[in-house]
């Protein structure tokens, strides 16, 4: 029996006061488009968001586990969990399944209270790398080419959203496994904003 992957592309970048996450909505079984409506960015709180690429079953289940543990931590400790804390919690959940991994990659981004925006990318077994911008999924190379050229430190919110959109549009144009729409999650110190662009 063969399980095909859900191909996908997701990007993330930090700007002067926050972070932008974006992901497509397509799910494929091999060359066949199974769904055009799967959301791959998740708002955890007003400060923290996650973008996923990989098997939808796996990242959806992983997010359920994560949300449970995130809430449990905040309730028990009585303090908010930082962006790095969230990435590390996800890493622990993923590494605990080292031999039968969650087949998904993640970008975790957000802003800690009074802190600088942070972005971390995680592979399927939970390595955590901090960066200023990242792309994951089957369109990684395409999206990264745009981010690599367009990224600057301390961009404005509008510039950051435009760059994320450009990167996603290039990936969608040339990667058959990505497409159908772009979900955005824009996080800054004040509030998270969600946005969707339909592409079909």
């Amino acid at each position, binding site marked *: *029996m*063969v*399980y*095909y*992957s859900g*191909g996908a592309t997701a990007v993330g970048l930090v700007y002067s006061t926050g972070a932008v996450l974006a992901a497509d909505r397509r799910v494929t079984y091999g060359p066949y488009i199974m769904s055009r409506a799967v959301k791959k960015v998740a708002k955890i709180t007003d400060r923290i968001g996650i973008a996923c*690429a*990989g*098997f939808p079953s796996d990242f959806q289940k992983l997010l359920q586990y994560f949300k449970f543990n995130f809430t449990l931590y905040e309730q028990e400790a009585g303090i908010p969990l930082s962006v790095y804390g969230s990435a590390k919690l996800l*890493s622990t959940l*993923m*590494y605990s399944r*080292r*031999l039968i991994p969650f*087949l*998904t*990659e993640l970008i975790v981004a957000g802003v800690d209270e009074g802190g600088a925006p942070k972005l971390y*990318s995680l*592979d*399927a*077994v*939970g*390595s*955590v*790398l*901090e*960066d*200023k911008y990242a792309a994951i*999924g*089957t369109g*990684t*190379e395409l999206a*990264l080419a745009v981010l690599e050229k367009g990224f600057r430190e301390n961009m404005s919110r509008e510039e950051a959203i435009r760059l994320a959109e450009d990167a996603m549009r290039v990936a969608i144009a040339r990667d058959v*496994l990505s497409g159908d729409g772009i979900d955005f999650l824009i996080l800054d110190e004040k509030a998270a904003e969600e946005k969707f662009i339909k592409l079909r």
Partner: protein
Amino acid sequence: MLELRSDKASTLLESKTTTVGLVYSDGVVLASDRRASRGMLVSSKVARKTIRISDDVYATISGLVADAQFLTQLAAAVAGYELYENKHRLSPREVAVYLSHRLFYARPFLYITHLIIAGFSEDGSPQLLNVDLLGMVSEEKYLSTGSGSLLAFSILEKGYTPELTEEQAIKLAVDAVKAAISRDTGTGDGIDVTVITRKGIRTLRFTVKGELVEERES
């Protein structure tokens, strides 16, 4: 038969890496490049491969990033616990032997990683230890791990003497990683140097050409 296929999503993050460690007259120098790769894609240009285990013990990592991060952060937690609970500072050898147990008894599911552990031994002399994926521990005067280690070794073999000064040791370590950067595609994007001395920790960052861009002391 069950087959899991996930195209590029299954390619895991590796640090093909070149890391270097060497003992000089009164300390240890660790150097590592900053590239993390996923197959032939450079997936990070700012990856940190020198990791703090305790105030005076540091490690360099190579191999599967998740495994290496897991093991070094576990060692850091154990070192922190020992200090808190028993007021005992773990020596580099104790850290290395602890990790070697974890690695050996993980068989047949190996942690895909090769570590260098550095610091000061109980008798106060600088110490450099090699921990491989099967659980071997060996003490060395100079060492290199990762895909570019052969290139780095060629520079170390030629330039290493136990009488090096701190600045000479830093230069040799940087030159060794530079040699690897020039011919190994898994290595690149800058050089992190950590110097462990009796006075404290000195961290430096160099460009791929060996120019100093950042220096910090703690």
